[in-house]
């Protein structure tokens, strides 16, 4: 491994937090799936930690490892259309790494649709019960879930939560 290569690797590692995923993988924003994969593979060949073998150079090991981890982060994000779209959205607001919180709130929003309840009031009290439970306020949680059951007496999801709260 040449000294030039070493210098180049250390420089990239230092600049890592200034590069967005596209710059890192050397891609245009409209890159296709195949191009994204190609970009990842090119860089992986260059920066894979195994290339160092048993070389005794902790600084270089650390730099290569940091770069490679970021490359896999970029690749995993960009190859999935959902996370890629979320990333581009964040990038426009200046976020160079994926704000996973955003993806999370999206997937939570999807899950909410599957949560129990048919009436607005029932669902609202159910959510309030969950929120109270999360805070550790058992009494409020119990009162909320009872209110939810007033609107939908037979909703199994509500009944299950009440049972859970009562059993502590």
């Amino acid at each position: 491994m040449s000294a030039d290569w070493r210098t180049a690797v250390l420089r990239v590692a230092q600049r890592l937090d200034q590069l967005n995923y596209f710059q890192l993988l050397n891609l245009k924003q409209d890159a296709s799936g195949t191009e994204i994969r190609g970009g990842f593979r090119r860089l992986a060949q260059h920066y894979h930690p195994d290339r160092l073998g048993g070389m005794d150079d902790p600084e270089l090991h650390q730099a290569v490892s940091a770069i490679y981890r970021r490359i896999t982060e970029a690749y995993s994000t960009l190859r999935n259309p959902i996370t890629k779209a979320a990333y581009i959205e964040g990038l426009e607001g200046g976020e160079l790494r994926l704000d996973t919180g955003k993806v999370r709130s999206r997937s939570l929003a999807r899950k909410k649709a599957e949560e129990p309840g048919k009436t607005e009031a029932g669902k609202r009290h159910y959510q309030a019960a969950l929120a109270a439970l999360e805070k550790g306020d058992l009494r409020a949680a119990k009162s909320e879930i009872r209110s939810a059951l007033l609107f939908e007496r037979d909703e199994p999801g509500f009944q299950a939560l009440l049972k859970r709260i009562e059993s502590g």
Partner: protein
Amino acid sequence: MSPPVLGIDLGTSNSVVSVVEANRPTVIANQDGELTTASCVAFLPNGSVLVGNPARAGIGQRPERTVRSSKRLVGRTSSSAEVQKAQEEMSFNILSGAHGDVRVQIDQRAYRLEEIAAMILRELAHSAASYLGTTSVTKAVITVPAYFNDNQREATRNAAMIAGLEPLRILNEPTAAALAYGYGDQEAKRVAVYDFGGGTFDLSVLEMGAGVLEVLATGGDTYLGGDDMDGVIVDDLAEKILNKTGRDPRQDPAARAVLWDLAETSKRELSEHDTVEIDLEVVAGIPMVYGLTRNRFDQLIEPLIQRSIEICDSVLKEAKTGTHLIDGVVLVGGSTRVPAVREAVRRFFRREPDTGIDPDLVVSVGAAIYGASLNDQSQAQQILLDVTPLTLRLGTVQRFTEAIIEKNAPIPTERTRTFVTSRDHQEFVAIRVFQGESDLQADNTLLGEFAFGPLTLAPRGQVEIDVTFEIDPNGLVRVTATDCQTGRAASANVRLSVKMNDQSVAEASASLPGTAR
């Protein structure tokens, strides 16, 4: 020159060790001149220990003192379904350790599974050392099923350390097999590795081009293997005996061990012959011979084969590919010798599978090749782009989990997430880490949990904690938490109570019983 690196396939039924010498991989024979060593450990009443084929040969005489197929139990909790099932099938005594870890009791000592595995590894290392005429063989690449989780990988690594080996890398078996075939020398090819071993089944799809081997997707079942084929034969034989004598031989440990042995031998013979005559007199207590035909056997194992094909189908989908895009199929594991298995693979992939390298040896050969490449600092290496087989998850409220690193993400990798406190003046935050594909905590494997703190005391929502999840090249998980206010970090190798800490590894290594040779 650095000492050679061993390539070890630590299998459920058999283990194999190889090494690369002068650029050529060699499978090393054990002291009996055999290339495969039974993954069996026998504890004799006089205190001496037999490892390998001699241990297996005596299983009928001392079923409760012979540990076999222990790989099925490694890295699992005693409450897991696999351990429950093993308790019924195995003749040796399985105990639960203080922290839900699995132990094997022999006389007054309760052995960890890591110690059993270490005895097998030490035997293989011993064979290698005598073959190479050196005592400085300490480094090894050890393979595991691609589908192994962090607990199982860590247990394997600890076993190596107990055996006095430095585990240079924990490598996935299918990846090793593909390396042995060396598709990487040519233009890019897409290869499916169908690995039907003694205890596990895996299907992996890899793409191999010049210098790069990329795992596109991998999936499998750690509850599906050749042992299950033996199991259906055992049940078939037992039913026959039950019908004739009114006594179920499975109730008696010694008879059960003999039945397992008969089943395994018959299965092997049925790969060569259309029918096998099984003498059941020893078990039944009356003269009794049963003719098991290949047709009957095929019928018995049909559901097992079908399950493997279903996994193939889902992994191909995961890899966004189809059978028409596969350029080669590699068979790995002894179970792929079964004609019905080969036929099912041929039908599904619509091509003749590659069988140039013995399916029992191919994994170890590939591990040795990779070991040599890791050891070499000069040559341009084969770069391995492996993936994590299971989604890494964080436990959240209401017994749910949140995916942090998706399965089939390339490794090594890391992700950082920021969390805020949910209570005023919260002192600690509990971090629970899981692996699996369910949103519910209970349906995943718990890798470990730790409390991070004390945190800066502040109203809720004011304290931010960065949690970094790393998966290293071995597939091992590490979690680091940092209090963003103070910058104080705590790193914890997520360590489930069933995992051993460094001190217990050192103690186990020091107290590992010697092997009679």
